[in-house]
């Protein structure tokens, strides 16, 4: 437990100290919310019959899970692997499971702070009510962060070098964020994009946050979205178990 707390604190220090990573994973969804909220927050999403601001707020929380738990985590772990930091950690008495659990906990803390900031901005600038299903929202965040973190760890095995990490990860996560409808309603998409959106995990996580925040649903009524997110999480976990490495490619 002492080691776990020590490592979570270390991870927090490392995350906030690394300005570029903190910007792309933490602040970018917040900035997108400010920009797009200002542009069309007061209009109506016709296909969904809701005001855009709360719709966008829930969508940016979806974007946030993809940027922090998936993209940010994957890039960080590839860089640590290729720079030999993971290898060094393996030579210390810190148990690997404690280390990974601390990394995931730290990632979740970042995502939680990000969500709180998005909700606060929604309330203060765009008159979005504070979500009235806090426990359902928290449960959704935990499920989403866990599943996307598993996918992020799974993706690390597909990335060969530290230099290539942001290119590969962005190639996966930016199109996913757009096609999954974090900014817009997928109902307005042409059919081929909708077909693509229908298999992406972020589509279902965003559906989850939207139904909890915008439509005031309880999480236990969202079985199919939960199942889709968890299924992708299991796929990510299997990829991580098969392919996660502690040592750099050439070492």
């Amino acid at each position: 437990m002492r080691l776990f707390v020590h490592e979570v604190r270390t991870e927090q220090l490392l995350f906030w100290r690394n300005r570029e990573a903190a910007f792309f994973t933490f602040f970018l969804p917040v900035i997108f919310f400010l920009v797009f909220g200002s542009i069309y927050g007061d209009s109506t999403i016709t296909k969904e019959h809701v005001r855009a601001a709360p719709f966008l707020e829930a969508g940016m929380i979806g974007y946030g899970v993809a940027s922090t738990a998936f993209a940010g985590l994957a890039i960080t772990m590839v860089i640590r692997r290729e720079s030999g930091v993971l290898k060094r950690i393996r030579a210390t008495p810190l148990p690997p499971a404690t280390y990974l659990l601390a990394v995931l906990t730290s990632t979740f803390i970042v995502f939680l702070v990000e969500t709180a900031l998005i909700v606060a901005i929604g309330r203060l600038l765009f008159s979005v009510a504070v979500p009235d299903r806090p426990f359902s929202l928290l449960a959704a965040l935990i499920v989403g962060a866990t599943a996307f973190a598993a996918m992020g760890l799974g993706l690390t095995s597909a990335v060969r070098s530290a230099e290539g990490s942001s290119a590969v990860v962005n190639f996966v996560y930016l199109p996913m964020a757009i096609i999954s409808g974090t900014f817009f309603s997928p109902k307005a998409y042409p059919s081929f994009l909708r077909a693509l959106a229908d298999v992406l995990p972020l589509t279902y996580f965003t559906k989850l946050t939207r139904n909890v925040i915008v439509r005031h649903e309880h999480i236990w009524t969202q079985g199919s979205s939960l199942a889709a997110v968890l299924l992708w999480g299991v796929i990510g976990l299997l990829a991580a178990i098969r392919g996660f490495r502690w040592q750099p490619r050439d070492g």
Partner: protein
Amino acid sequence: MNAVTVRGLRKSYGDHEALGGIDFTIEAGEVFGLLGPNGAGKTTTVEILEGYRRPDAGTVEVLGSDPQRSGTAWRQRIGVMLQSSSLYPVLTVRESLRVFAGYYATSRDPEEVIGIIGLAEKADARVRTLSGGQQRRLDLGLALIGDPELIFLDEPTTGFDPGARRTAWDTIRELRALGKTILLTTHYLDEAEQLADRVAVLRGGVIVREGSPAELTGGIVETEIRYTRAGEEIVERTTDPTSRLHELTAQALARGEVLAELEVRRPTLEDVYLELTE
């Protein structure tokens, strides 16, 4: 008591045999040098002892355990300095040492380690602003922070300027004085000669010579005497340098000559090494 026992160790990567059955032991409290050119199998050997790689055949015992089966209690007792730097660029020197100190049940005081590695003036500098040599010293500091019994140093001074190398050597001698066991790989012969109690020369995955630096150089008995006479450089080899030198200098004095550029050179580990690895 042996800190490390290696018997019949083999390792291949595909068709390439990196280690072709090597045997050696390291006694507790000893500095053992693994010497050899690049690709000789030094890092493969060290990484098997550290538990990173699985041997194909043979037995390996490190501090009484098989590295493949040892847990956190065993890692408590070893310190590892990898061949390439592995640090968090955004942390300071002090923060790096504190982070890694936290992984051990008992650790050395980070401030003390900062002094040992000679980075007191850089203690609050971010790792990314350090020179390559300073980063290597921090790597060494992180290998020491858990106060290990057995320390693996894989090419610890590669890329150091001569001053920094001497400082690192002093640090390693201090560790030896504290009773630590050290396995050092290097391709610098003077480093092995200066630091190691015993040296094994590795070539093409086999140990071609093993012993103390004195034993290895003792194999070549001839001492080289060089001097210049009448503008001509003369090189003699002799098994009895004391008498030969006496003769030479007596003759020169009798003729009223000077033995210009007189030099007497004992074979160094380098001569042995070049002979073995060529």
